[in-house]
């Protein structure tokens, strides 16, 4: 396969011009049929060939172009989505070429989110049925076209590797030869999808379709876009969130070679130059005075204190089972703890950037985004233009992790570009990227359990407070004070808990914006619940695996991954002094995962994670190599969070700025990661984030096993573990 078009159609003029009628109907949260219907006979034909729906275009030369409704940011989507289509379309992955979807909420909506976005580990879950149907519908039309031409029954023909074949006579026609005929046919109303036994691609390790360009520097990310005449800008935004520019002295900056223009906004200043070196130098030469505003004295401690107060008051009930209050009162033993998780930055390797050209009533944008339609809509607003006048080119993404679900960068770049003649690429320095991120929220939990005489949890209450990202980002999904992300992992626990009561108190921190992050809600909730269940096991003086296992009699899938992880990790085998083994179990993003961490605590208190064993049941596996890669990846992301991840505020400013004080795990610190999969015929679960949430409590529990010290606040403070 060739990935040779890195920018997309700006808007779907190709389809709309031809008068296609969208039939992507939402019912009961699932896409009934992800196809488009030709309004007029023959309208699916033309120079571009056969376009049965918004995902597939087959040319007269048999070239198969697939439009990707979900973006590629490393998670392997641009291989697994083509696998789904190719499985039913009967083409070889080598025959396909990929394009990024243009902004079009109707054609490319994520059925699980209700917007055109890639996140929540649900690309494969969202695509599983509609994209196989898209491939199957196209295949049926091509077979029908061939059969008609041959004067045969369609059912006597089949498709294989981009051809329709009539077995008995040996006749065959390439898809390219059939596109004109197929385009005149009605879309089939019913398609029967293959049974798992018939899969040729799904479940086999496919080579990544985006790999080649990633080893020779030829891949084009948003930051590599170079429209003719592009200038480079970098910027300083108010160091305190909500602050304003009071004055700018740009006299020295203007004299520098290569500096072209200084752009002053309400709350930011940008230097436009011939290259980033000159832009950075210009920025350093500016003297900016800020009106720091209301948040100038804010510190992390203020946020934490407010949340500690918030968990003292009742919040909306996220889940209630039985009567936790009564059961708690009757319990033999009661255990309670407070947990804290910090603000976290994304620190994707590709710093925030966006290239914009505002000209004559039109705005053209180049960037890598997880939410292209949101970018288009908010950029249009910022540009003061109708949405159809904003052209957006998406790119492969140099790390998303939720950061690129936000359009703040595009809006900022448009504000700057409006003052510039010609295209400008706005590139955040790493310092600006970290200090003006939108952060994984700080959350505080008050969690309590009551145990019976055998140590079993008969009551479980959890009240937590912090930001709801969904409430800002996707208001319709925030209902009655609750949203599915913030509570995921705190409710619907894998364990049989007869009396459970969970409340969430929404508190938006002042002076710091929050956003999604790899595994968002579960990155918090699974740390708390899986640490706390470990506390209960310790209080009951029971083995952490055995204790969990006893609560899983109703949940064979969870029990299977727990047992597999324990077995492969050699649970119970002796470790050297100063080492510990910890386990965590979760059911989030639609996948079951158990992880065992093996850690060493050195004399200075620092924690080294040596080995991580993952046992996963993620339902049907589309690309096993991707599943392994995503678990390896998710684990490293979580180890970084456990050991180093923390954004703090002082005087309203983010104190971390670059990889020296916002550290990311390095190869010399990376654990060995083993991945074991449980075979399952269930529909696919999510993969991209699961590994991150579970590993944090697994590490904390391993530290407890080694030291007897319970870690209720992330990241790990080595001083607390000093020998």
């Amino acid at each position: 396969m060739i990935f040779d078009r890195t920018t997309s159609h700006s808007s779907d003029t190709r389809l709309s011009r031809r008068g296609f009628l969208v039939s992507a109907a939402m019912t009961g949260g699932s896409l009934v049929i992800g196809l488009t219907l030709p309004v007029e006979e023959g309208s699916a034909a033309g120079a571009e060939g056969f376009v049965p729906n918004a995902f597939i275009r087959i040319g007269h030369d048999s070239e198969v172009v697939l439009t990707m409704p979900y973006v590629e940011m490393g998670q392997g989507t641009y291989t697994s989505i083509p696998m789904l289509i190719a499985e039913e379309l009967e083409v070889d992955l080598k025959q396909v070429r990929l394009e990024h979807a243009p902004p079009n909420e109707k054609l490319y909506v994520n059925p699980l989110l209700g917007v055109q976005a890639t996140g929540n580990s649900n690309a494969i879950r969202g695509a599983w049925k509609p994209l196989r149907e898209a491939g199957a519908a196209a295949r049926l039309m091509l077979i029908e076209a061939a059969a008609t031409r041959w004067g045969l029954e369609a059912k006597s023909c089949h498709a294989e590797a981009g051809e329709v074949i009539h077995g008995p006579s040996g006749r065959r026609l390439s898809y390219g030869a059939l596109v004109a005929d197929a385009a005149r046919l009605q879309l089939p109303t019913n398609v029967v999808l293959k049974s798992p036994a018939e899969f040729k691609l799904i479940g086999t390790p496919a080579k990544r379709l985006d790999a080649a360009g990633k080893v020779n520097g030829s891949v084009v990310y948003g930051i590599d876009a170079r429209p003719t005449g592009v200038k480079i800008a970098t910027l300083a935004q108010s160091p305190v969130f909500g602050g304003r520019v009071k004055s700018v002295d740009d006299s020295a900056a203007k004299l520098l070679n290569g500096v072209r223009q200084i752009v002053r906004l309400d709350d930011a200043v940008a230097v436009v130059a011939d290259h980033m070196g000159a832009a950075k130098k210009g920025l350093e030469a500016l003297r900016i005075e800020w009106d720091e505003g209301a948040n100038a004295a804010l510190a992390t401690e203020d946020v934490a204190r407010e949340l500690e107060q918030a968990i003292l008051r009742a919040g909306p009930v996220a889940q209630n089972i039985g009567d936790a209050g009564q059961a708690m009162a009757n319990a033999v033993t009661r255990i309670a703890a407070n947990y804290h998780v910090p603000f976290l930055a994304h620190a994707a390797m590709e710093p925030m950037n966006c290239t914009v050209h505002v000209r004559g009533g039109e705005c053209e944008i180049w960037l890598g985004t997880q939410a292209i339609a949101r970018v288009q809509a908010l950029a249009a607003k910022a540009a003061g233009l109708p949405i159809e006048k904003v052209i957006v080119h998406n790119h492969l993404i140099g790390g998303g992790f939720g950061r690129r679900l936000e359009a703040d960068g595009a809006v900022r770049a448009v504000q700057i570009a409006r003052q510039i003649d010609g295209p400008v690429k706005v590139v955040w320095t790493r310092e600006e990227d970290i200090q003006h991120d939108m952060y994984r929220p700080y959350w505080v939990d008050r969690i309590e359990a009551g145990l019976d005489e055998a140590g079993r949890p008969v009551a479980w209450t959890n009240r937590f407070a912090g930001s709801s990202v969904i409430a800002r980002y996707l208001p319709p999904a925030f209902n009655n004070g609750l949203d599915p992300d913030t509570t995921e992992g705190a409710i619907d626990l894998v364990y049989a808990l007869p009396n459970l009561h969970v409340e969430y108190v929404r508190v938006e921190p002042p002076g710091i914006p929050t956003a999604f992050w790899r595994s968002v809600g579960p990155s918090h909730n699974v740390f708390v619940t899986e640490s706390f269940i470990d506390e209960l096991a310790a209080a009951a003086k029971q083995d952490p695996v055995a204790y969990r296992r006893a609560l899983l009699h109703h949940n064979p899938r969870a029990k299977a991954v727990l047992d597999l992880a324990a077995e492969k990790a050699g649970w119970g085998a002796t470790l050297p002094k100063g080492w510990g083994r910890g386990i965590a179990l979760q059911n989030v993003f639609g996948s079951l995962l158990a992880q065992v961490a093996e850690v060493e605590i050195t004399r200075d208190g620092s924690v080294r994670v040596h080995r991580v064993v993952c046992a996963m049941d993620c339902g049907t596996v589309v690309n096993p190599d991707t599943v392994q890669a995503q678990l390896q990846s998710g684990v490293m992301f979580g180890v970084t969070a456990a050991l180093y991840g923390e954004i703090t505020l002082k005087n309203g400013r983010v104190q971390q700025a670059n990889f020296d004080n916002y550290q990311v795990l390095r190869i010399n610190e990376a654990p060995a990661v083993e991945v074991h999969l449980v075979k399952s015929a269930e529909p696919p679960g999510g993969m991209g984030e699961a590994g991150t949430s579970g590993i944090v409590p697994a590490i904390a529990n391993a530290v407890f096993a080694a030291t007897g010290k319970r870690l209720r606040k992330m990241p790990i403070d080595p001083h607390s573990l000093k020998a």
Partner: protein
Amino acid sequence: MGFTININGTPRSVDVDGDTPLLWVLRDVLGMTGTKFGCGQALCGACTVHLDGSAIRSCITAIDSIGDSKVTTIEAIGATSAGELIQKAWLDREVAQCGYCQSGQIMSATALLATNPHPTDADIDDAMSGNICRCGTYVRIREAIKVAAQTRVKEG
């Protein structure tokens, strides 16, 4: 100020201040975008290129410090025997995820393999710990370097 430097075997002339980092000359002046910006302070390794075969961070290497030294970038590293082996091993082991840091990883790994045909785990740690991968592809980076080293042994 004008400078002429040898990049991938070709002399290239640019007119920038002498303290301009090589990274921006490559990316913004010459349009060679394979070399990546990650941190600007030699903390992440995304901008790694070779200077006379040694891995350096182009984000802190001023253009006026290069002189007659030969610069090799990701765009040309496949033409070296070590670079070709590393690229093949990267594809064989499916190392890249988002891929953004991989130009730098490959440049560091190639410099290692070119001077050390049998790197140990400790050698790999030493040579590669300056290169951050936020996708956490470290397990496969290590495997791929070993695959490349073994391939070289087999091929003699």
